[in-house]
């Protein structure tokens, strides 16, 4: 899915992704306050563990990305959170490469950060039911954006990896549905029992 392994991407794409990731992580770290640290760590750990579990769907196999959920709760702190989790996945499970770490961080975290900071104020004001709908749509959009960015990273690197639209649709549409439900459920739950968790998204 979004864990691109080593030796697939071309050098300019790797360097570009790496530079973007370093900048984004620096920005995220600068904005993290003391009170943001625990929830950043919890979501990082959640992403680390949940995105290890994959389900076979159609011709491929999918796993959760949680980009929308992390983006809504963390804002720009999503970059360090995803960085730590992806680094551990790469080192411990050979899950995505080390050279592709930057590209993978950007592909997963950037849609979350953008869409998350866009909808976070709306969710803060909304009722739990409405918040669930907004978060669900946002999560599904994040998955689609991540899919497009993965496709772009591969297509920019080599014509060999031009992606077939059929496979992309077959694997990303089910994931968008699943992510939408998971994101919506989590946000409405948090909204009901601990709304202050959503208040401080940078």
């Amino acid at each position: 899915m979004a864990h691109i392994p080593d030796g697939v991407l071309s050098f300019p794409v790797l360097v570009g992704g790496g530079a973007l990731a370093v900048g984004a992580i620096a920005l995220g770290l600068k904005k993290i306050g003391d009170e943001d640290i625990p929830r950043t760590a919890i979501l990082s750990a959640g992403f680390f563990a949940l995105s290890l579990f994959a389900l076979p769907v159609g011709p491929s196999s999918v796993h959760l990305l949680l980009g929308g959920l992390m983006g809504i709760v963390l804002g720009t702190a999503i970059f360090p959170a995803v960085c730590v989790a992806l680094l551990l996945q790469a080192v411990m499970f050979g899950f995505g490469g080390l050279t592709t770490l930057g590209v993978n961080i950007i592909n997963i975290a950037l849609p979350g950060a953008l869409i998350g900071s866009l909808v976070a104020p709306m969710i803060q004001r909304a009722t739990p039911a409405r918040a669930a709908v907004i978060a669900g749509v946002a999560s599904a959009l994040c998955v689609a954006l991540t899919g497009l960015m993965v496709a772009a990273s591969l297509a920019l690197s080599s014509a060999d990896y031009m992606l077939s639209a059929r496979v992309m649709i077959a694997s990303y549409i089910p994931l968008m549905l699943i992510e939408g439900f998971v994101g919506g459920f989590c946000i409405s739950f948090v909204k009901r029992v601990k709304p202050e968790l959503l208040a401080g998204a940078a």
Partner: protein
Amino acid sequence: MMRLLAALALLAASAWPAQAHRLKLFATLEGETISGYAFFVGGGRAQDADLRIKDEAGHEIAQLTTDKSGAYSYKAPQTQTYHLIANTGDGHVAEATIDKGRFSGASAAALAPDEDDTPAAAATTAQIERAVDAAVARQLRPLMEAYEAAESRTRFNDIMGGIGMIIGLAGLALWSSARRKTKP
């Protein structure tokens, strides 16, 4: 609340069979036929994946597609090292290599034939060798498949270790920010 969520996540993680999500390519040699399948570790086979075969020099010599069970087979035209690259089209790529030393012809050439071998005896030797190769390949295949599947299985301990590491990092960050505050 957080403790409840953490407990739930833990429960879900331990109840689920440990599966990592990663494409792998299984390849083995039977006679002159390279065969195998593309699979996701713990998560099914890769159907209709693009499979390219490259020779020693890196030139692409064949392009196949995996079938409904992710399987493929390719008749090797000559004895050389083959590189296989599977691509599912959504960001998963896996590679495998069949070394030229695994072709039966390679070992036969290495053993210099005896001077007094009659052509008939040489033919019998070649036949026996092929039969042994086929038998060994057949028997080894399940073992190699099991090894490939086990090699990258996600283990519960590893997941807990990773989560522990993240919690440790958070503790470190909190500690350093607390230190910064207490300093004048």
